[in-house]
């Protein structure tokens, strides 16, 4: 599978694997927290700006149906994840809901790595795809919190706070802010900032993935404790949800590149917005389960195998 080989040998993925390797060796490789935060802010804003510029060119009519599809997928994917987890694992109801919320939400970095892959292969995609990222981030978490239902009723105040946390958190604010800036700015003024936000982007992504590799590598140590059922679920859920995203993307008329990106969005699990929100709203849930699955298993799986698979499926369908 040449696409898979090309993904694995891209500097971004190799840097990620280097980070994982460093973590397994217990090396001191790690960016300072402030740099990590700054880089993730940069990636959010850059993805937002780029999507915004695409939004300006596409116009609302073209975007409406894919956005609607993304909202529906945002509700369906956590339910599918919840069902798979119920069958495959023996997690408590609160832990089930907490993990499902992560699969309902989406991963910026997986999306970013997929965009980088599409561009390196000259595969065209809808430039407004980042809008779908912003749309998909929230509903999945909310559905997950609702799934916790009675078990978490006591934490009702926490749920409100969690919603606030998601909506005012850095990821949503910078992403939607970037979309707005990109959509409102003129092409000439956008070109002025493009050297920082477009040209440097793949290099910054390499640096960020190195650091994320270290974090994922640390989580790998917890995998044995998670149990085989959860490991199987952490690979099966992205495959099912990702394929569903590709199918729906193709059905609503996205290009193969765009459908693959929608697959990446629905198949990936959040590990920035969702963990913070879930920790506040469902403190009884064990973070080891949702962090290990989303960051330790699903993220590396998608980065190396999932993205090329969704792209291959989209090309076959398209």
């Amino acid at each position: 599978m040449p696409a898979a080989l090309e993904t694995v040998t891209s500097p971004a993925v190799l840097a990620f694997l280097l980070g994982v390797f460093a973590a397994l060796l217990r090396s001191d490789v790690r960016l300072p927290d402030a740099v990590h935060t700054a880089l993730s802010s940069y990636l959010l804003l850059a993805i937002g700006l780029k999507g915004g510029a695409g939004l300006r060119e596409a116009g609302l009519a073209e975007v409406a149906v894919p956005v609607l599809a993304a909202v529906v997928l945002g509700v369906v994917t956590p339910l599918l994840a919840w069902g798979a987890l119920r069958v495959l694992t023996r997690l408590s109801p609160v832990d089930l809901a907490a993990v499902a919320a992560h699969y309902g939400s989406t991963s910026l970095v997986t999306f970013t790595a997929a965009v980088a892959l599409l561009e390196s292969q000259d595969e065209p995609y809808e430039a407004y795809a980042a809008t779908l990222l912003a749309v998909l981030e929230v509903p999945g978490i909310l559905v997950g919190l609702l799934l916790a239902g009675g078990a978490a009723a006591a934490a009702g105040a926490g749920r409100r706070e969690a919603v606030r946390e998601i909506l005012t958190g850095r990821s949503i604010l910078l992403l939607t802010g970037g979309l707005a800036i990109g959509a409102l700015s003129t092409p000439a003024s956008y070109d002025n900032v493009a050297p920082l936000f477009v040209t440097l982007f793949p290099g910054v992504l390499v640096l960020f993935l190195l650091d994320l590799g270290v974090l994922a590598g640390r989580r790998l140590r917890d995998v044995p404790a998670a149990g085989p059922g959860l490991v199987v679920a952490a690979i099966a859920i992205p495959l099912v949800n990702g394929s569903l995203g590709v199918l729906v993307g193709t059905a609503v008329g996205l290009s193969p590149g765009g459908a693959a990106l929608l697959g990446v969005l629905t198949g990936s699990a959040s590990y920035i917005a969702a963990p913070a929100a879930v920790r506040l709203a469902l403190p009884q849930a064990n973070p080891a389960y949702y962090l290990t699955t989303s960051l330790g298993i699903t993220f590396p799986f998608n980065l190396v195998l999932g993205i090329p698979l969704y792209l291959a499926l989209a090309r076959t369908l398209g």
Partner: protein
Amino acid sequence: MRTVPVVCLTIVAEAVVEARLLRDLEAAGARGWTLTSGHGRGTSHIDASDWEGANVRIETLLSSAAADRVLGMLAEHYFPQFAVVAWVTPAQVVRGDKFL
């Protein structure tokens, strides 16, 4: 110089509860605080946000009655669910009316 006895309350908590904790602290009567972030490990082994900053350490000077209120609030709303520890040490301050 004449000093007044107060207590220094130190709370170490996972970063995710920072905003909520500071609000509750103020409501319980703390008139100021100092916050630093750091790393650590506790019995819960919970670090729900180790990619977004680590633990926070909040120190505040207040009357022992106010410290009791804060500890009661922590015992009710935080200790059962979140990774939080707190302790109280005696302190002597000048300008006692600033803290009491």
